[in-house]
């Protein structure tokens, strides 16, 4: 019963850092070309959960995962699955903008070059296209040789989005992409995320509830490693089923 709308089928996952149990028996289905937001107080496991979806936790040596995550029909953690392939298909934008200390052009071209694309015209075209999709092209088109680190924080984050888009992923994961940005830059990124769902499946971690309410179609509320509630965003923010969710979204804690 593989539903074509479902891209991630997460079944009963548990995760540990050493002895510390940080994700507790979580199941969730994430739909294609929708924005799914993950909210909850800090330290509740949102980032850990997000990084399970593209195997970025592989680099943390005391990390351990149990349970199953299907991406389409593929088990992400089966031995036959190539994590490189997974990360290629499921891109990520991080909490702090992290452009490479290279030119804007090379920041974007890198992801293509490592997969053997050398043709200059092709690279040029993809760089432009990605920057346009990330709403950055008009600001940088005359200065593609400039170092990515010389951009403002908001521009850097859009550069990181362009970089993620360039390798043509199917999913983009965002881990609190606006937490280091001012309100104007934040608004731009939010607009962008709503654009992106026309082409990509988006999962976004945020601790800003207004942001979740504005940009997402579905929202999951995490607390202390539990997925307390997962539903339509509208439902979560108007008539949550769980008392804890209600307390959290009305600002009574967190």
């Amino acid at each position: 019963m593989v539903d074509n709308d479902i891209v991630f089928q997460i079944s009963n996952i548990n995760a540990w850092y050493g002895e510390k149990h940080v994700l507790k028996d979580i199941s969730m289905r994430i739909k294609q070309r929708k924005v799914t937001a993950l909210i909850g107080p800090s330290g509740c496991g949102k980032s850990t959960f997000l990084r399970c979806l593209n195997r970025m936790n592989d680099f943390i040596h005391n990390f351990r995962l149990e349970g199953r995550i299907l991406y389409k029909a593929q088990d992400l953690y089966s031995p036959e699955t190539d994590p490189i392939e997974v990360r290629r298909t499921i891109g990520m934008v991080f909490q702090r903008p992290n452009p490479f200390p290279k030119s804007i052009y090379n920041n974007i071209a890198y992801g293509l070059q490592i997969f053997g694309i050398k043709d200059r015209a092709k690279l040029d075209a993809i760089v432009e296209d990605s920057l346009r999709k990330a709403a950055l092209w008009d600001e940088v088109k005359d200065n593609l040789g400039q170092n990515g680190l010389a951009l403002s924080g908001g521009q850097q984050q859009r550069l990181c989005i362009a970089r993620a888009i360039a390798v043509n992923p199917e999913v983009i994961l965002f881990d609190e992409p606006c937490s280091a940005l001012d309100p104007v830059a934040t608004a731009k990124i939010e607009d962008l995320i709503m654009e992106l769902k026309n082409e990509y499946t988006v999962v976004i971690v945020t601790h800003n509830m207004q942001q979740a309410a504005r940009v997402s179609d579905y929202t999951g509320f995490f607390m202390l490693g539990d997925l307390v509630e997962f539903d339509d965003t509208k439902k979560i923010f108007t008539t949550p089923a769980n008392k804890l969710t209600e307390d959290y979204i009305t600002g009574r804690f967190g």
Partner: protein
Amino acid sequence: MNRLAYNKLVDRFFKLAALAATIVGLVFLFTLVWDIAHDGAGRISWSFLTSFPSRRPERAGILSALVGTIWIMGLTAVFAFPIGVGAGVYLEEYTKKKNLITRLIEINIANLAGVPSIIYGLLGLGIFVRALSLERSLLTGALTLTLLILPIIIISTREALKAVPFSIREASYALGATRWQTTYRQVLPVALPGILTGTILALSRAIGETAPLITIGALTYIAFLPESVFDPFTVLPIQIFNWVSRPQKGFAVNAAAAIIVLLVLTLILNSIAIYLRHRFQRRIRW
């Protein structure tokens, strides 16, 4: 005397003591440099740089020693850089899980950096001269000095890699890059100035080494230039050592002049290192 006044007094005392220590150090250094410059500067000339050693001090030059030093430095850099950087990259980027073996290797490397250089000379004598029958050649000298500076290069490579933020690696992995692509294309370029600085400083230590080269049997009198890496050689410190031990006044002057040349070489190497470090700090800011 109240407590506050007492504290101030102690404070002032330590300030003066530190100043005095600095001045004593500088005075010694300047005396040394001035003394050598005074003795040797007049002796430096084109013919001094381009003549072979001789029994007559006024006709002797440092050609074979200078060429030997340049050969040895070049070869040592060629051997030590890739091996040292490779080992540093392996330890820093590929063995993230700290197990007993990697710990042991780390402790060993840290200790090796502190082993007296003559021990490396004995090692070189045993391995390269005897076991591999490379004789007292340039190759033996360079390989021995390679062993000597490898720990320093490995350690400075690791420090330079540690200074590269993890977020750069994450960004690369998240695009589907392999560990090698991430290391080679993103991490190493950022760490390179730091690695080069460490390597050059290590080389500038090696350039003055005498004991290990004498231990492997480098000659003190060479009146020809090496034509291949299997030829015997001498280097500036050995030439200086040789001249200093002669009774004639003329050789003491030669020694002083050769010391100036050696100091200039070291200074050039260190300036390159400082320049690289400077550029590195200016260019990259996170």
